[in-house]
Structures are given as C-alpha cells and as structure tokens.
C-alpha cells in the first residue's frame, strides 16, 4: 500500500524533494526495512523531504513490474530501494529515467557500464554496509566473553552459535566476519562456532524452528547464540531464557525492542546495520548537493554505518577488560589495520 505522508502533487509544486521508497518486501520486519523507513521518515521533518512508500511484498514475480510501475510515475524525484535483489531493477531503470535520482542501499550497481546501467549509473547513489566488520567485533566479543567465562551461569565451554536464515551472501558475510573475530580473539571457529540455518518455507518467519535450533545449540554447549534470521530469531531469545544463557541481537537494539524483560536480559549486545542512518546522511548530502552519484559507497564501522550496541546490559555483562580489548579492535578495524574477510 501507499502511505502518502504528505500530498505529493502539492509537495511537487511547493518544491519539496519527493522520495519514493520501493520495498521489495514489507514493512514490519523490525530490522532492515523498518530502519530504512525510520531514517527516511526523519528526512521529512528535518530536511523537508516528502516520502511515499510502495511495498511490493515477498513474491518475486511482482518486483520487476512493481519497480517499472513505480519509476514510470511522475510523483517522485528520488527512488530509494534496498537489498541486492533490486540491483537489476535499478540498473535497468536508471538509464531510462535520467532525470530522476536513485538511491540503492545494501547493494551496489555496476558503474563501469559493462553490465547493467548503460549510462554508467550516473544518477545512482549506492551504498553497501560492511556488516562483516560489525560481525567481526561480535565474534571477537563472543570469544572473549566465553573464554573469560565472563557470562554468569555459563558452563565454561568456548562455544557459541550463529543462526542464519538461509545460506545467502548477506547472511554469510555476517558469519564469515563473526568467525574471523572469534579467531582473532583466540578461539577456534571450526569447533567453537556452531552455524545453522533455519531454511524451509519461511526461513525468516519460523520462530518455532529458530527456537529448536537455539535449544539444540545450547544443548550442545553453546554459551551464547546469535540469531541472524529475522523473526525466526525471536524464538532464540525464548530458548535463551529457558537455558539461562545469552544472546546477541541483530539489526536493531533488541534489548530495547524485546518486550519480555527476562529475554532482554539475555541480550549482551546487538549488531546494527544502520540503513536508516545511511539514508538520512545521503539525504542530507543530497540536499547539500554533495551526494556522490555515479560511484559506489560503502559504510562500515568508521562511517557508523554498522556497529554494536553499548547499553546498560552491555555494561553489566561485559567486563571492563574485554570492553577495552573490543574497543581497541574496533579502532583497528576503523583504521583499516585489521582487514575483515567478506563473503562477497
């Protein structure tokens, strides 16, 4: 559906910049799209943009024509879209509508003009997130915590678990980074990091399966489980409460978003992929005329595009020594002294 937050034709006349956010999925995922939406929403108030949202749903057969339709209207100045799945559509549409701007987050178009864009995507701003950097810190923190037996009530295994939705590059990027961080902290990722995928008909919406997997991981001695599986991950927090163990959150600060107090207590930190922030910054730069169209951008720890949450629970659960080491690692990653491997 379309939520017109302000009347578009009027805003067109009034000279407001009109953003059309086309979602190849639905709002309400509580992480990625919601975060992007929040960022764009903020531009309305702070920067005077107007926003229109088009949800295409999860049926892939509808996406292509959905984008065509969305682009063909004259009710926008900027078309924003996310995820690698939309790269093809943006590459095709950008040359067809050279007067419009396209913002692509969490995916990158080919600016060489060899494939995709025939105009070398000169009107496309694309930004990717170095989720592997944040995941690296998560892995580092995880190993330090379990190696130091810092988490109360643990059995002292140097073992943690990661639950992915499905085995796709975006998820793998998390896993690879996590394992690298785990290793950097002195752990053995091949025996110490259990990785498992939800899979099935609804991999990001099957909390029962997520809970089973988390329970199995705790049963096999994992001290801490990090679900990277959308709503399926919600099951993992329940499992953590039952097992009296710990979790990491993902995409948003799940210590805040979880409503159950005992579940919240299990969340040591959350790994953030800050799509909203990236889009807000892009909008700001666009207004100032400094947004870099025509070449790829990537945001990582240094740009605050990804990161981890440091809150009261973090304070409570992470010993000062570990915190110091973690901050040192973060600085190294930011400065480029540590190169984190990627699944891409």
């Amino acid at each position, binding site marked *: *559906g*379309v*939520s*017109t937050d302000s009347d578009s034709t009027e805003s067109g006349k009034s000279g407001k910049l009109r953003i059309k956010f086309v979602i190849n999925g*639905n709002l309400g995922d509580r992480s990625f799209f919601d975060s992007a939406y929040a960022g764009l929403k903020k531009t309305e108030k702070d920067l005077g943009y107007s926003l229109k949202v*088009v*949800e*295409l*749903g*999860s*049926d*892939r*057969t*509808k996406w*292509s*024509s*959905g984008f*065509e*339709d*969305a682009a*063909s209207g004259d009710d926008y100045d900027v078309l924003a879209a996310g*995820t*690698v*799945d939309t*790269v*093809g559509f943006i590459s095709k549409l950008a040359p067809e509508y050279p007067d419009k701007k396209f913002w692509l987050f969490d*995916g*990158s178009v080919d600016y060489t003009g060899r494939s995709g864009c025939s105009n070398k995507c000169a009107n496309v701003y694309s930004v*990717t997130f170095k989720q592997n950097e944040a995941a690296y810190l998560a892995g580092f923190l995880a190993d330090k915590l379990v190696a130091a037996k810092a988490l109360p009530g643990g059995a002292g295994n140097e073992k943690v678990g990661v639950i992915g939705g*499905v*085995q*796709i*590059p*975006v998820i793998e990027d998390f896993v690879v980074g996590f394992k690298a961080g785990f290793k950097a902290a002195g752990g053995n990722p091949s025996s110490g990091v259990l990785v498992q995928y939800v*899979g099935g008909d609804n991999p990001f919406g099957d909390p029962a399966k997520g809970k089973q997997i988390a329970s199995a991981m705790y049963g096999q001695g994992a001290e801490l489980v990090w679900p990277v599986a959308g709503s399926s991950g919600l099951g993992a927090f329940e499992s953590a409460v039952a097992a009296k163990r710990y979790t990491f959150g993902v995409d948003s600060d799940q210590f805040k978003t979880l409503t159950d107090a005992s579940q919240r207590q299990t969340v040591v930190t959350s790994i953030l992929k800050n799509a909203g922030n990236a889009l807000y910054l892009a909008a700001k730069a666009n207004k100032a005329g400094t947004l870099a169209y025509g070449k790829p951008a990537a945001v990582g720890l240094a740009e605050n595009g990804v990161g981890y949450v440091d809150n009261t629970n973090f304070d409570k659960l992470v010993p000062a020594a570990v915190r110091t080491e973690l901050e040192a690692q973060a600085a190294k990653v930011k400065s480029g002294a540590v190169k984190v491997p990627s699944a*891409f």
Partner: protein
Amino acid sequence: MTSTLEPAAEQQGRPETQGRREFLATRRRTVVVELTMTVLTVAVAVLIAFLVVLATGKDAGGALDALLTGPLERTPRIGRWLADATTLSLLGLSVAIPFRARQISLGAEGQVYAGALASALVAINLHLPPVAAVLVPLGAAALAGGALGAVPGVMKARLGANEIVATLMLNAVVVRVFDYLLTDHLKAPGSSAVQSAPVRPDSALPLLSDFFQVPLDQANIGLFGMLAVAAAVWFLLARTPLGYRIRITGSNPDFARYGGLDVPRTIEWSFVIGGALAGLAGAHLALGIYGGLQPDMAGGLAFEGIVVALLGRNNPVGVVAAALLYSYLRVGGDVMEQQTDVGSDAVTIIQAVIVLLVTARALPELVKRYLARREAR
C-alpha cells in the same frame, strides 16, 4: 428365433429426433448459462472485494477502479498481465493433464524449478545458433520437468504410491537442491545477490516490446508458445488415442483396464506430459521473465496453477481463459496495492475472496432458487 422387437421406425424415430434436438438445445443452453454464471460470479466477487475495502475504511471506489482498469492503463501492465497469464496457463495445463487422468499431482512447483534449472544451464553455458539457442533450452526444460514428473508417475502407476505425498515430498527435495545448486555452484561470480549469471542474449525469449514497439514489460513470445501448447494439449486430449486413454482412465480406470488400455502407462504419460509443461513454465520464468535463475523464483505459483486448472475445469481452452482472468486480477491487485492505500494484506484477502467465490459454483444456483422462492411467495 422370432424377434418381435424391431426398432419400429414410427415409434422410435420421432421421439428420438425430438430428444436429440432437446439434448443439443440443452447442451447449448448449458454452455451459455455456465459462461454467464461465471461472469456473474466474478462480478459478485469483485463486489464483495469492494465491500471488504469499504469496510476497512479506505477509498473503495479508487481501489476498485485500480483493480479493474489498472492492468489496462499502461502497456507495461498489459505486458505483465500477458506474461503472468503465460506462466499460469502453462502451469494450469500441466496440472490439468494428470487431473484429467484423475491423478492429483501437486508436483508443478518442483517441475518448474527443474525446468528453470535445465533451461538456464543450457542457455547460460551452451553457445548455439540463433533459433536453436531458444529451442534447445526449452527442450531441456521439458525433458527435465517430464523426467521429474515421471518419478511420482511411476511410483503411482507401478507401485500404487500416493501421488499427493510423492509430489509434495519431491517438491520439497527439488526446491532445496535448487537452492543448494544456486547458492553454492551457480551463483554468478561477482554478484552479491544470489542469482545465476544471465542467460545468453540469444537464448532469452524475444520480448513482445521489440515486435510491437510499445513497452510490454517482460511479455515475450512465450505467450504465443503457450497458445500453441494449449492448442496442442486440446488436440492431445480431444483428438489423439493417448488423450482418449487419459480421459477414460480418469473416468473409470477399471473400465480402461477392461477395455485393454494400458492404465499404468497412461498414468505415467499423464505425469510426464504434465511435468514437461511445468518444465516449460519454468523455462518461461528463467528465459523470459528473469533472464536467469533466482531463489524462490516460483514461490507459490504452482498452487495458483492448480486454481487455474480447476477454474478452467481442466479443459485447455478453459484453463487459458481462467489464467487470463486470474492473472488480470493478480495484476489489478498489485496496481491497487501500489496506487491506493489498500495494503498488501487486504489485496491478499480480496484475491482469496475472489478465488473462493468463483469456485463456489452453486452460488448463482442458490441465488436463483432464493429469488424464485421469494417470487412464489
């Protein structure tokens, strides 16, 4: 022997011809009534959809307008409608054939993936001369789909294994193998998305836009291919011995066996041909719609194919008509969702209501009876 029952002409002749005329008239009337009733039901379904939207407090007029006229407003949407109808028709035909042999094959999903996989593998890797570049991948898709159809077919025909379970399970296996191959072996190098390399341009199904010089989205010559396939299926069922065997087996397998038909072979063929058609639907997706392989590329489509087949009463002409109608509503639903403030959930609900009402065939009958009773009173 003194037979006394000559087919006496004066006694039998007259009523026979009269009965004949009545029979033909009734048959004609039935067709007309059926068609009118179908149109009426769709109208009622749309009306109810209108009420659903109204009940949610949204702009029902605009929504209805988007649903009904949206698909025709712009040529790319017409293209999308035709492309969608092509896939759905092929899927509908693919299940209609086993259905006609009274085999409930739910295996279209797996067969679509198999067909897409086979066609894309050929179309990505083999360098072929122009026309062969399209035909060979299509053939590969039909072969792959047919081979996959043969598995439940043989299990059912030779062992008596339940085909509903066999096809559902096979779907689950094939989808997972497809996912595995796509992510681990076929993913385009350098692509950050899970998708295969694009098919060679020679192998992509030529777009209708190029012929008609109007943008028609992904609609391609697969549309004509589908019409040819539908005609072939009609011919197969109505005019060939195999089609006859399929029809008779579906009607009464004991009679078929008694009559000397090879029932197991017939059942196998119904699965294989159905599988081949679903494979072609997969090729249409891979070569025509996506230009490559994507995860979840046929999600849910196979069930829509069953709906189309049953709405079209397993009759090839009916299936194509049903597919056109159904995909029109699908595209209209998308337009409604994108242009108005009706959410995707409401669109899903409306589509469900339409499916349910269109299949509820006795509804007009009941309404008629109710009106008649009221009149009588």
